[in-house]
Structures are given as C-alpha cells and as structure tokens.
C-alpha cells in the first residue's frame, strides 16, 4: 500500500459521445493506472420506443418502420420482420425474390464490414489507409445507391418478396463493382496480416475467450472470432442460403485483429455469394404482388445481419396491427460482452475494443 494520498483507482467516463463512432455509448470505467479494472455500462441514449410504435402501425407500414431502426443493417430488419409475417400467413416468396433478398443482404454486408474495419484502421491512427478503405467502401456504396436509389435505407424488402429487380445491365454493373472490391479486399487482408502498426495495436487486444463468448451469448463476427462457428445463414438457413457456396469464417484468438479478419474474409464470401446469385438468378416475379391480411398467430424468425443474429418475434391478432413485435439485435448481446473484453485493457485501447464489436446502438435500444 502506498502512503501518499493519491487513490489507487479512479473512474473515468468514456462517452457518451464519440467513443469510436458517432453513437452514444457511455462507459464508466474504473482504472488503475493505465489499466481498466471495472466497467459499468450506461445505456439508453438512443431509446425511442419503436417497439411500442410497431403495435400502432399496420403490418405493411411496419416494413417501412423496421427498416428505419438501423442504418447499416437496415435491410436485415424488414427482411426478418417480413419472414415472420410470411411464416404466419403461409406466404411463399417467389424464387427470384428469394435470390434478390440475398443480393440485397450481401451488398449491405460488404459495405457494413468495410466501414467497420476502416474505422478500426482510423483508430489505429493510420489515416491514409482509412481513407483508402473508405474509398473502397464507396465502390460498394455507389453500387447500393445505383441499384436501390439510396445509400442506407434501400427499401428492398416487402412482405412476400422484394421491391426491386435487376436486368442484364445492372447485373453486369454489380459484377464489375464486386470484382473491384474483391481485388481491393484481398489487398486489405494482406495489409492486415503484415502491417506493423495494425498488428501491434490489434493482436492480443480485447480478448474474449471461447468460454466467455458462450456465457455472454455473443453472436456474429464477435462469436466467430472467439471460435464459435455459428452463422444463422448456415445453422438456420433462410432465403437461398442453403443453395449457395457459403463459407463460415472463424478464428480462435478472440482479439480485435481476429474480429477484423473474420469480417474481411466474410466480404470475400459475400462477393462469391453475390456472384452465385447473379449466375443462378431464376426468372419469374420478384414478389407475390398482393397484400393479404396476416392471420392471427405467432412466429420466431432469425437472420444473419452484418453484426450477427437478428431475431424477431411477431404475434398477430385479428387487427391489421401486430399485437407484439419484439426483436433483438446482435449488439444487444455483444455490448454486454464488452465488459469481458475491456477487463484489464489499456485505456488507449478502449475505443478500438468498443469498435471491434461493430456496435449499433440505435437498433439495440430501439
């Protein structure tokens, strides 16, 4: 015990603004010197009561509302919600619609992952490479904007299928764009494996052990980087995923670097999935072209958003409005897991570790 009056530990606030990205996360962190000794999480800055709102909207309006829960996984929400409605009503999505759902999903995954890994590089302090990666992501964002007319809320999903279609010209355009992203992503992976700055700041940092990952119930790339080979697209296939060349990437170290590598490798897989979809794209209608009443019932559906498993519970009654809609996004689980990742971390690594779960608060708090 030291005899001077300086306390051994003191608390620092991290957040609520701009921990890693412009989302309100607030941590009360007790530090001992430069080392984190205890983490308290204060949530709720982006709580908007959307769960309540969904019960005031009709089923069809909710497709629009759920898309606005989040920006980066704005396609996963309406898709999973629509899947639940389709399950209750026994709606079969046409074959072409099933493939187009995968196309929209994988495009969003590519841009989401590139954004997260680019931010990691920014936090490392390697600004030139950050800008380069954002430019690579811009190829993807251009692609999304050209196909859907929007960069974030793409409005692609509807109950019974999708609301967009591709023709030969757009297919050729997508193929060209993903070819470019593929070359660049392979290059980024090489950099991640060899660049000293990136390796020193990310290897062995923010480790989540396999056992802790199971206890916390983490999902998505965070779980896969800790050796849990779980991907909803393979474990509980939906849309066309059981017919596509899906590879599930995982790692064993559970550190920031592994999570970034899982994401980068998933971009390459997404590109292959897109190619397979565009090659096998069946003809026919893209949706059922009808808005049937959704009968009373309940359903649980899941999908793999860029950040991991999204689960929707939908309960309908005789009214056009749902009785209860509840969903849980990957960050809800992974955020709590940060307690384990931040334990004994260095203060300078906090932002990097927080970013490594790819946090999405607006959809966690709803």
């Amino acid at each position, binding site marked *: 015990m030291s005899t001077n009056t300086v306390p051994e530990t003191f608390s620092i606030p991290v957040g609520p603004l701009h921990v890693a990205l412009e989302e309100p996360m607030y941590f009360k962190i007790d530090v001992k010197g430069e080392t984190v000794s205890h983490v308290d999480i204060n949530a709720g800055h982006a709580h908007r009561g959307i769960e309540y709102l969904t019960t005031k909207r009709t089923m069809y309006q909710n497709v629009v509302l759920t898309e606005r829960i989040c920006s980066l996984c704005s396609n996963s929400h309406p898709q999973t919600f629509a899947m639940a409605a389709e399950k209750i009503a026994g709606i079969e999505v046409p074959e072409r619609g099933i493939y187009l759902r995968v196309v929209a999903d994988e495009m969003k995954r590519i841009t989401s992952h590139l954004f997260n890994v680019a931010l990691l590089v920014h936090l490392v302090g390697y600004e030139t490479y950050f800008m380069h990666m954002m430019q690579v992501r811009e190829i993807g964002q251009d692609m999304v904007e050209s196909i859907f007319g929007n960069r974030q809320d793409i409005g692609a999903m509807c109950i019974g299928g999708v609301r967009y279609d591709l023709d030969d010209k757009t297919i050729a355009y997508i193929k060209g764009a993903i070819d470019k992203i593929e070359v660049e992503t392979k290059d980024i992976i090489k950099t991640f494996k060899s660049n000293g700055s990136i390796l020193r700041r990310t290897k062995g940092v923010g480790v989540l052990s396999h056992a802790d990952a199971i206890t916390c119930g983490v999902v998505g790339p965070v779980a896969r980087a800790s050796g849990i080979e779980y991907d909803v697209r393979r474990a*509980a296939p939906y849309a066309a995923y059981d017919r596509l060349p899906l590879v599930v990437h995982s790692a064993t170290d559970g550190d920031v670097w592994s999570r970034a590598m899982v994401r980068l490798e998933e971009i390459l897989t997404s590109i292959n999935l897109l190619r397979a979809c565009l090659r096998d794209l069946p003809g026919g209608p893209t949706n059922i072209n009808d808005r049937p009443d959704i009968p009373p*019932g309940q359903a649980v559906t899941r999908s793999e958003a860029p950040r991991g498993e999204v689960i929707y519970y939908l309960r309908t009654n005789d009214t056009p409005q749902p009785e209860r809609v509840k969903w849980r996004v990957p960050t809800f689980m992974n955020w709590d897991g940060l307690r384990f990742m931040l334990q004994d971390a260095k203060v300078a690594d906090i932002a990097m570790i927080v970013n490594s779960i790819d946090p999405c608060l607006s959809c966690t708090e709803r």
Partner: protein
Amino acid sequence: MSRLPQDLEARLTAAAPAGVEYSAETDSHGVTVAWLGLAAAADLKPVAALLHEMGARLSMITCAQPSVPEEEDEDEDEEDGEEKAAAEPKETPKTFGGTPFDGTSYEIDYHFDIEGDALTVIAYVPQGGDIPSLTPIFRNADWHEREMMELYSVKVTDHPDPRRLFLDASVDGAVLERLIPFSTLVNAASTKGLWERLLAGKKGAA
C-alpha cells in the same frame, strides 16, 4: 431432420411436473421451430437448467400482455394452442395452466437456440406475479430481464442487477402497459400547447 434431440419433448416434460404443451414444426430449409408452454412458471428454472445442459443458447426474452382471446370456434390452429384450449365461453379464459387471460397477465417467451433450431419456452405470470431470474443459468438473461422489468411491471426475483437498462430512473415504469401520448413523450403537451408556450414566452420577452 430436426437437430433437436429426439427425446426433447420427453425430457422437457419430465423437467416440468406441472405440465407442458409442446409443438414443433420443421420448414422447407430443415429448420425446426418448437414451442413449449409451461403450466406453472415455477417449472421455468428446471427447464432452463435442462436446456443449458443440452448446450442451448438463450437468444431473446419477450414479454407481452396477450389480449383477451376472441370467443369463437377456431379450427386447427397450431400457433394459438394455449388460447384455443382456454377459450371457454362466459368466464375469464385461462391458459391451460390456469393463468387468467384477461389482458393484464404476462406471457414471457424465452427464445432458445439449439444448434440452429429454435425453441420458445412460454411462461405465464398473472398481474402482480413474479418470475425467477434466469441469470444463474444463462448469464446473458441479465439485460433481457432488466428491459422486461422497465417495460412491464412484472417482477423478476433474484436479479443480480435490477437497475433500469434503457429508460432513465426518473421515468415511471411499465411504459408498455400505459398509453403515453406522443406529445407527452416528446415533452410538448400538444402542438397547440407548444405554440401557446412559445407565444407566452415571446410576450414575456417583449
């Protein structure tokens, strides 16, 4: 086809002496979605312990207040087993376990994942009742239960950290059980009220 253990229903039934209602359905992708209604909420913990032993992952907890079921003769309707069984005319309908279905009881759904298949365990709690915390078995029940406690006035016993999760402590609880007008929510009594306040402020300033 299903990845759920063959004897799952038997084992779950054995773990819940008060009785269960089990149904399962497998879709064209080979994914099974199963539902397990519990007659007594007290059976929740043994069932959860069994699921934990089988390697299940707790994926989500949903709390809801199911509305009073309509009194009508529904034909075969697998989604609404509980409500249908309980829809006896002329008295408060009950779940098969005896919880009244009067619009104030809670239905708490525990959504589990077993290697890709989904199992939802349903417990019913009457208004004013409580439910044991699952945190000793599934640590990640923590946030779900905290959220449930702030959205409804359901009590979770033995929760290690029963603070608010998303709502501020100054907000009255059970927000999903009350009608909160949008204008109250956004802190302006009405558009007219806001306008009047603005005018009054202007007059005061002049």
